[in-house]
C-alpha cells in the first residue's frame, strides 16, 4: 500500500477537440487548443516549477516561477497563462530561466520560517519542493529584513490552522474558495508587503462565513493552511480509496493513513461524483468512527427497563433469534420485520432484506427512504418507468436553467451545491421554489431569476400553474411529446392542465406566489435552453409528495427536457446509500431492481437462488409497523443503522409503538435514541471498516474499502447471516464481493457489476447490463424505460394539516450544513462548533408579535407535542412560517410533527406542521401531548 498522489497538471484541461502541435524542450508534443504550456508540458511528462498554479483553478500568473522561453517571442512568459500554439517552440530549462526562478525563490524564502524539520508540511510542501528544484542554496537578502514571521496563527477552526507566517500569498486558497467552493469567504486583503489572506472581515476562520469545506487547505502549497490531525500525527504513509458515508452525493476520498489510524480524508480527484471537492462533513467529520461512545460489544436485556448486559456474539444472536421465533409462534409469522439502513452498504442491505424475506418468511422490510424519497420511487416509476434520477452530476455543466424545488443543496448536498453555483456563475439561470430564501436565491455572485416563495404544502398548485402556463401559452415541445410520450395520456393531461383553475392567477391565493412570477418562471423553464429540475425533501415529505414528483416529470416531458445532457429530473438523495438501499429491495412490495413481490416469474427466480418459498403479499411499511405494533399484531423489529425514535415523525407515537414490542434489535455504532427501547444491541461498523459499495444520487456505484479492521470483530453482513441461520435459514457468504455477485445474478440493472470491475473502472452507473455494458450516466436517452412517457393528472389536494387560531404558524424542518440528519455521527465531531443545538428560525414580524428576541428560549407546540429551543430571527423565512432542524435529540423536533403522510407511499409530511411559538424560560426539553 502506498500514498496515492494524483498528478497536478497546473491548469485545468481544455475542452477543445482541436489539437495543436508544438515543441517543448526539443520534443514534439500534441495538446488540445487552449491548453496552457504548463499543462501541455505536464501531459508530456515535463515538469515546470510553479507555486500559484494548480489544475483545479484557472491560471493566475502571480508566482513567476513557471516562466518559460518561447522561440520568436520576447520575454519570459508564464507558462500557466500562455496557451499553446501551432508550431510553438518552448524551452523550460535555460540558464536565464534558472536565474530568474532562483531569484524568485530567494525572495519567498527571505520571508519564510526556516523550520522545515519541525514543520507539519515536511515531506509534503510545494515550497520546499520548489526550493529543491531551483537549487536554492543561499538567500542573498538575509532574514533580518521586514517579514511576517510573527504574524498570529488562527486555530479557531476545529480542523485546521491558518499560520500567516508561512503564507506566500499565492492566493490558491482564495481562488479555491471562489472557484471550487463558491463561498467567497477568503480574500486577499491589503496591498504590496501588507497583503495577507483574510477570512471574512478578518474575524478568523470560525467566526467568518467560511464553510470549512477544506478546498483551501487542499490547495495550500505550504503549511499555512494545515489539518490539525497532520500537525498531531505527521504525514500519512498510505491511502485507501473509499466513499464518504454522509449525503447522497457520494464523494470519493483517499483515507490517508498511518497504519490503521486515519490521518486525514482527502477528496479524490478522479472521484466521479466530486472530482476532488469535499464538504466539512466528509473532509473532516469522520472522528465519530473511533469516538469513545462507540459500543463494540453485543448487549442484551430482558426488558427495556433493565441495564444492558455485555454478552458474546453467540449469546446475543441466540437471544434475538429465540425471542423472534417465540413472537412468530405466538402471533404469527407476520408479527416481526426489519428496517434496512441507507447508511450501510448495498451488500449489507441486501442480506438484511434477504433475511427478512427468507428467514423471517414475510415482506415486512422497509428502509429510511420511506421517510424521505419513497415518493420519488413511486412518481418516477409511474411517469418514466424507473425509480431514479435521470442525470449524472456532470450534466449540470450543460444546463442553462436550473429549477430547484424544495432543496437546499449548498447545505444538504454541499459538493453538488458548489457545482451548481459554479454553473450559475457561468451564466445559467436559476429558479428556486422554496418557502425559505436559501443560498441559491441570494448569496455572493448568486441571484435567482425567480424565487417562488410558496406557502408550505402548496407545491402541487405551483407545479400545475407552471405547466398551465406552458400549455396555454403554446410552449409545449410537440415534437418531443409526439415522439416520446403516450399521446392518449398527454391529451387527457393537456385538457386537465389547461383548465383555468390551474392558472397562476387562480392559485395565487393558495400558494401566496404572485402570478406574474410564476408565469415568468414557466416561460424561462420552457424556453431558456437546457432546463434541469433538481429537488429534495421539500418535494417528497408532503401529503402530495408523489403527486408533486409526477408533476415535475410532466413538466420535463412537456418541454422535452429529458434524455440528454443538461436537463432531467433529479432527486437529491439524503443519505449516502438511500438510492442503493432502495435498489437492493428494501421496500415491502419489491425485490431488488424494483420488481413487485407478487410477480410470479420474479419471485420464482429468487426462490430458486434462495432455496425457499417467498411471500407474494406486500409487507408493512415503517409507519404501518408502528400502527400494527400499537394494534397488537406486530411485536418484533430489527432496526439496522437507523434511529427511528429520533428521525420519524410524531415521536410519542413511535415511542409507544416501540415500547409495545417484545423484541427490538438495534444494530448501530452508538446507543442511539431507538436503543432506549431495544432488547438486543448488535454493534455495527463504521464506513472506515466496511467492504462493499454505496450507490449515490446519480446511480453511481462506488466502492467502500476498509481502512481499518472491524472494531467489533465481525462484518455487519456476517452478523445478519448469523441471525438468519439462528432463525433456521442458513445464509453464508465468504466475502462482500460474493454478495454483490448474487445481487448481479438476481438484479437485471446490476447484471454487469462486480467488485473486480469496480476496482478496475472506479465506478459504474446502473443500469449496467447487456444493453449498457459500461453503465448509464444518462437515463431515457432514446426512449423511456417504461416505453412511452406517461403524463399523470396532478390535482392539488390541500393537506389536512392547517394553521388555526391556536396553531397559527407553519413549521417546516430541514438540515444544516455542519450536521447530518439525527446527528448521531456529526454530534460526535468538531462540527458542533457550528451548530451545538437546534435553532428555530422565525420571521421578524412573527417574533415581534410574540415578544421574541434573537436568542430567546421559546416553546414550539403543535397538536402532537411541544419542545423548547432557541429562536433566531431571520428574514430568510416568510411571515407565518418557522423552520428548524432535527439534529439534536435534546430538542426532539419530531415531537411536534404529525402522522400525516404522502397518499401513495406513507412518506411523512415533515414539511407542514401547524404550530405556535411562545416565549419560554425553560431550557430545551421534550414534553408529550399524548
Amino acid at each position, binding site marked *: 500500500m502506498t500514498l496515492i498522489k494524483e498528478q497536478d497538471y497546473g491548469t485545468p484541461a481544455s475542452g477543445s477537440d482541436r489539437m495543436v502541435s508544438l515543441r517543448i524542450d526539443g520534443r514534439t508534443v500534441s495538446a488540445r487548443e487552449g491548453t496552457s504550456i504548463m499543462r501541455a508540458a505536464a501531459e508530456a511528462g515535463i515538469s515546470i516549477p510553479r507555486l500559484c498554479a494548480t489544475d483545479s483553478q484557472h491560471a493566475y500568473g502571480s508566482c513567476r516561477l513557471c516562466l518559460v522561453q518561447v522561440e520568436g517571442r520576447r520575454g519570459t512568459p508564464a507558462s500557466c497563462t500562455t496557451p499553446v500554439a501551432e508550431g510553438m517552440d518552448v524551452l523550460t530549462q535555460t540558464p536565464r530561466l534558472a536565474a530568474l526562478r532562483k531569484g524568485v525563490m530567494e525572495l519567498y524564502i527571505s520571508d519564510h520560517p526556516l523550520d522545515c524539520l519541525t514543520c507539519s508540511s515536511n515531506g509534503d510542501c510545494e515550497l520546499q519542493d520548489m526550493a529543491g528544484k531551483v537549487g536554492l542554496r543561499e538567500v542573498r537578502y538575509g532574514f533580518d529584513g521586514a517579514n511576517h514571521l510573527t504574524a498570529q496563527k488562527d486555530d479557531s477552526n476545529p480542523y485546521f490552522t491558518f499560520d500567516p507566517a508561512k503564507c506566500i500569498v499565492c492566493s490558491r486558497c482564495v481562488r479555491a474558495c471562489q472557484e471550487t467552493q463558491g463561498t467567497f469567504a477568503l480574500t486577499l486583503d491589503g496591498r504590496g508587503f501588507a497583503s495577507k489572506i483574510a477570512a471574512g472581515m478578518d474575524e478568523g476562520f470560525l467566526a467568518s462565513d467560511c464553510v470549512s469545506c477544506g478546498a483551501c487547505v487542499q490547495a495550500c502549497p505550504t503549511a499555512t493552511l494545515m489539518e490539525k490531525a497532520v500537525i498531531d500525527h505527521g504525514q500519512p504513509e498510505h491511502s485507501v480509496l473509499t466513499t464518504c458515508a454522509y449525503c447522497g452525493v457520494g464523494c470519493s476520498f483517499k483515507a490517508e493513513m498511518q497504519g490503521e489510524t486515519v490521518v486525514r480524508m482527502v477528496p479524490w480527484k478522479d472521484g466521479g461524483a466530486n472530482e476532488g471537492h469535499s464538504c466539512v462533513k466528509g473532509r473532516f467529520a469522520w472522528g465519530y468512527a473511533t469516538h469513545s461512545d462507540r459500543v463494540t460489544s453485543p448487549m442484551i436485556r430482558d426488558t427495556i427497563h433493565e441495564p444492558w448486559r455485555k454478552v458474546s456474539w453467540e449469546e446475543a444472536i441466540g437471544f434475538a433469534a429465540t425471542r423472534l421465533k417465540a413472537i412468530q409462534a405466538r402471533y404469527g409469522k*407476520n408479527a416481526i420485520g426489519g428496517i434496512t439502513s441507507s447508511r450501510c452498504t448495498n451488500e449489507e442491505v441486501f442480506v438484511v432484506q434477504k433475511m427478512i424475506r427468507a428467514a423471517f418468511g414475510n415482506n415486512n422490510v422497509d428502509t429510511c427512504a420511506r421517510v424521505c424519497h419513497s415518493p420519488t420511487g413511486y412518481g418516477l416509476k409511474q411517469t418514466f418507468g424507473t425509480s431514479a434520477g435521470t442525470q449524472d452530476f456532470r450534466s449540470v455543466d450543460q444546463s442553462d436553467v436550473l429549477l430547484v424545488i424544495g432543496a437546499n443543496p449548498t447545505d444538504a448536498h454541499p459538493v453538488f451545491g458548489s457545482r451548481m453555483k459554479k454553473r450559475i456563475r457561468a451564466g445559467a439561470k436559476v429558479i428556486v421554489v422554496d418557502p425559505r430564501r436559501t443560498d441559491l436565491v441570494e448569496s455572493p455572485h448568486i441571484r435567482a431569476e425567480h424565487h417562488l416563495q410558496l406557502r408550505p404544502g402548496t407545491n402541487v398548485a405551483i407545479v400545475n400553474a407552471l405547466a398551465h402556463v406552458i400549455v396555454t401559452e403554446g410552449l409545449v415541445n410537440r415534437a418531443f411529446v409526439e415522439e416520446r410520450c403516450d399521446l392518449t395520456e398527454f391529451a387527457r393531461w393537456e385538457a386537465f392542465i389547461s383548465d383555468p383553475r390551474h392558472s397562476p392567477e387562480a392559485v395565487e391565493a393558495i400558494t401566496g406566489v404572485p402570478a406574474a412570477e410564476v408565469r415568468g418562471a414557466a416561460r424561462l423553464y420552457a424556453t431558456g435552453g437546457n432546463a434541469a429540475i433538481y429537488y429534495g425533501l421539500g418535494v417528497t415529505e408532503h*401529503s402530495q409528495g408523489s403527486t408533486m414528483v409526477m408533476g415535475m416529470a410532466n413538466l420535463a416531458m412537456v418541454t422535452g427536457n429529458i434524455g440528454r445532457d443538461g436537463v432531467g429530473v433529479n432527486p437529491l438523495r439524503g443519505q449516502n446509500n438511500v438510492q442503493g438501499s432502495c435498489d437492493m429491495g428494501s421496500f*415491502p412490495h419489491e425485490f431488488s431492481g424494483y420488481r413487485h413481490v407478487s410477480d410470479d416469474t420474479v419471485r420464482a427466480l429468487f426462490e430458486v437462488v434462495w432455496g425457499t418459498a417467498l411471500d407474494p*403479499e406486500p409487507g408493512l411499511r415503517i409507519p404501518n409497523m408502528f400502527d400494527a405494533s*400499537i*394494534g397488537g*399484531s406486530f411485536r418484533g423489529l430489527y432496526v439496522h443503522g437507523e434511529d427511528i425514535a429520533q428521525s420519524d415523525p410524531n415521536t410519542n407515537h413511535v415511542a409507544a409503538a416501540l415500547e409495545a414490542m417484545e423484541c427490538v434489535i438495534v444494530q448501530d455504532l452508538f446507543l442511539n435514541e431507538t436503543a432506549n427501547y431495544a432488547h438486543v444491541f448488535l454493534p455495527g461498523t463504521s464506513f472506515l471498516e466496511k467492504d462493499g459499495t454505496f450507490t449515490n444520487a446519480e446511480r453511481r456505484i462506488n466502492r467502500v474499502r476498509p481502512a481499518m479492521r472491524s472494531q467489533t470483530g465481525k462484518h455487519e453482513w456476517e452478523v445478519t447471516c448469523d441471525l438468519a441461520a439462528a432463525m433456521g435459514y442458513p445464509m453464508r457468504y465468504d466475502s462482500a464481493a460474493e454478495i454483490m455477485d448474487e445481487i448481479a445474478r438476481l438484479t437485471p440493472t446490476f447484471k454487469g457489476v462486480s467488485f473486480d470491475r469496480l476496482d478496475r473502472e472506479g465506478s459504474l452507473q446502473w443500469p449496467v447490463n447487456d444493453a449498457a455494458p459500461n453503465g448509464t450516466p444518462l437515463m431515457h436517452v432514446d426512449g423511456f424505460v417504461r416505453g412511452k412517457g406517461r403524463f399523470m393528472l396532478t390535482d392539488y389536494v390541500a393537506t389536512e394539516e392547517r394553521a388555526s387560531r391556536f396553531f397559527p404558524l407553519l413549521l417546516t424542518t430541514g438540515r444544516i450544513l455542519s450536521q447530518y440528519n439525527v446527528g448521531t455521527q456529526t454530534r460526535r465531531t468538531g462540527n458542533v462548533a457550528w451548530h451545538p443545538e437546534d435553532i428555530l428560525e422565525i420571521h421578524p414580524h412573527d417574533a415581534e408579535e410574540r415578544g421574541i428576541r434573537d436568542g430567546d428560549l421559546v416553546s414550539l407546540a403543535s397538536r402532537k407535542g411541544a419542545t423548547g429551543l432557541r429562536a433566531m430571527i431571520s428574514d430568510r423565512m416568510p411571515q407565518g412560517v418557522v423552520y428548524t432542524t432535527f439534529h439534536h435529540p435534546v430538542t426532539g423536533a419530531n415531537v411536534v410533527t404529525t402522522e400525516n403522510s404522502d397518499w401513495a407511499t*406513507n412518506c411523512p409530511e415533515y414539511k407542514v406542521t401547524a404550530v405556535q411559538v411562545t416565549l419560554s424560560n425553560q431550557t430545551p426539553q421534550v414534553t408529550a401531548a399524548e
Partner: protein
Amino acid sequence: MDSADLVRMANQIAGYFRAYPEDEAVAEITQHIRSFWDPRMRQGLDALIAAGGAELDPLVCKAFPPRPVSG
C-alpha cells in the same frame, strides 16, 4: 390497525385518483391498495367497508365492494 389511520390513508388515495374517470379511478385504487398494503391492512379496510364504510370515500367503497358472506 387503527381504523382512523386506514380511513385517512384510503381516502387520500381516492383523493388522488378522483381526477380520473370513475371506472379508471376505482380500478387504480384497487390496484394501488393491493400493491402496497399489507394483508392485515386490507382486511381492516374490508371490515370498515363491511361495517358500512361511513367515513370512507365512496370511491374506496367501490374499489373494494363487500365480499359475499360464504356458507
